[in-house]
């Protein structure tokens, strides 16, 4: 029997919107391969939608051995109950050890509902997943999923396990697992799933939808200039934007700046925003709470500008400038322009 015919070790929810697969699902397939190899099991993907069969090949190229394909008009636009029901049916029929979702807005809406129905555990926003053992007074367990996540505002890192319930479930944020290139030579199997929904499952309907194309692409930026509470106003971000434009980079922000309404949430870097690894990260007026640092501390060169010499951001910065960003940033702009 080939590996493809085993019950899957890891099932990945393949999130798609309007026929476009979410990057995080492809990232998860790469992670799933790693985990499944340790379990000596296969990787499966659950692909739900109105008309999405065409996406299955890409899931296979990124690591799925089996794609469970559920197509139905009621699955055309994401709503919680129909998706939860179909995913639960797939889990019940195929008994994966592990089920992973992207920690996207849809993933975070769907996964808890699925976990509730399966009466199992779920860990949100994992930043890493590993396979390992555990023992306590009650017994010992092998090959558990270590669900590793920051907690308590990012001030601690917790390793969570689900010893006695299956499947073990987790959501993982986009960008924390490196996306691996597709391998078009991989082969896999597509299995159609019968969709069994009744009227009561359709209690929620989407009557209008407005979605702008993601204009901010923090993940792909090689330079990010980010502002925090120290930017002090919406207008203050004009200066941050100018430096970003000069350096050919994107604009990032801390949660404090986003919560204060200085800039949109799509710019937020950190545990509850986007995780980034640019070549250069310039933190302007950002104190550097753990929740922010968790989203940028793997950047190549971190430059911190802050008036407070004790700001935690300096503890991870490669270059520190203690000073007022409103003086330092114009100097950076001028210096760069003169350089080139």
């Amino acid at each position, binding site marked *: 029997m080939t590996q493809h015919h085993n019950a899957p070790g890891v099932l990945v929810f393949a999130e798609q919107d309007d026929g476009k697969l979410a990057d995080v699902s492809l990232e998860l397939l790469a992670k799933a391969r790693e985990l499944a190899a340790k379990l000596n099991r296969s990787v499966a993907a659950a692909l739900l939608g109105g008309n999405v069969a065409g996406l299955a090949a890409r899931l296979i190229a990124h690591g799925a051995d089996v794609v469970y394909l559920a197509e139905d008009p009621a699955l055309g636009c994401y709503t919680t109950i129909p998706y939860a029901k179909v995913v639960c049916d797939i889990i019940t029929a195929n008994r994966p050890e592990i089920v992973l979702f992207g920690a996207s807005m849809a993933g975070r809406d769907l996964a*808890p*509902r699925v976990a509730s129905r399966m009466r199992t555990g779920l860990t949100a926003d994992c930043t890493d997943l590993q396979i390992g053992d555990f023992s306590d007074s009650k017994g010992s367990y092998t090959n558990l999923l270590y669900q590793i996540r920051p907690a308590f505002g990012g001030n601690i890192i917790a390793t*969570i396990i689900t010893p006695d319930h299956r499947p073990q479930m987790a959501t993982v944020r986009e960008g924390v697992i490196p996306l691996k290139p597709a391998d078009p030579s991989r082969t896999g199997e597509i299995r159609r799933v019968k969709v069994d929904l009744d009227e009561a499952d359709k209690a929620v309907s989407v009557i209008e939808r407005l979605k702008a194309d993601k204009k901010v692409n923090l993940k792909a930026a090689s330079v990010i200039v980010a502002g925090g509470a120290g930017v002090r106003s919406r207008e203050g971000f004009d200066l941050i934007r100018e430096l970003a434009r000069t350096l050919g980079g994107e604009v990032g922000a801390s949660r404090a700046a986003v919560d204060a309404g200085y800039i949109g949430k799509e710019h937020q870097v950190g545990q509850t925003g986007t995780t980034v690894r640019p070549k250069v990260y310039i933190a302007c007026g950002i104190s550097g709470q753990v929740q922010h640092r968790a989203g940028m501390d793997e950047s190549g060169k971190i430059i911190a*500008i802050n008036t407070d010499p004790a700001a935690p951001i300096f503890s991870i910065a490669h*270059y520190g400038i203690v000073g007022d960003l409103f003086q330092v940033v114009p100097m950076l702009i001028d210096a760069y322009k003169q350089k080139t």
Partner: protein
Amino acid sequence: MPYAMIVLAKQVPDTKNITGQAMKEDGTVNRSALPAIFNPEDLNALEMALSIRDRFGGRVTVLSMGPPAAAEIMRDALMRGADDALLLCDKRFAAADTLATAYALNCGIRRIGPCDIILCGRQAIDGDTAQTGPQVAGRIGIPQVTYVEEVRSLSATTLEARRNIEGGYEIVRTSLPALLTVVGSANESRPPSAKRLMHYKNARTASEVRKALTDEQLAQAEIRRLEERGLLIREWTVDCIDAEPCKCGLAGSPTRVMKIQSIVLTAGEQKRYEPTRESIAELVKELVQDHALG
């Protein structure tokens, strides 16, 4: 048409404002030094419920699960306008993960009685999981609408809401009863009115009374007096809500915390530059030479 509403609220440590004082010398956070607050987005959920009541009439009951000290946010909720506040308080509820929390809250909701709309914050700032709301809805078996920014319209049997999605929004219609999770941008929470503040600052749970008055007879008299004046914040135990103890708290939680590692701030190698033109020019030169900047 009046709506019966339940707002789920949580008392949380204020993880958003961790200052130097809350950091221990080894660079880890001193959790006990953090003030306990009303979870911010639960206040937005309460405000949404109160504004629905203002427009259509109805009743807003706040339900929380927590230690005796969580009575503080129950008082706060009453001062801000809630009609009733109930605290699930029992050692057997402790150390619950989201599945066990949702189970207990569902038992509490059943005990309160039929309701049309359940509201809670999108997520709590201590765990940031955003799981409890959907799992309560799952337990009850009603629809959920997450990330709600605005309730656009309401009828006897349906609700229309605008919810955030990545890069935009959706208008969705749901049948009632339904559970909404509310985002921080939905509204500004109303402050307590002076009149309600004066009245409800005296509201107490029985545990608080017993802590203050160790004489049981005196305590019972005080509890009766509070009850007559509508100032008794009721505490419900596992038995009060007919919950199975094995499904509550740590016993009912499929997940276990295996290891906790505190983040330690470590000082790496760092170059300091002065905020002067010459110094900044040096920095830019170095970054360009390193090919970090193009």
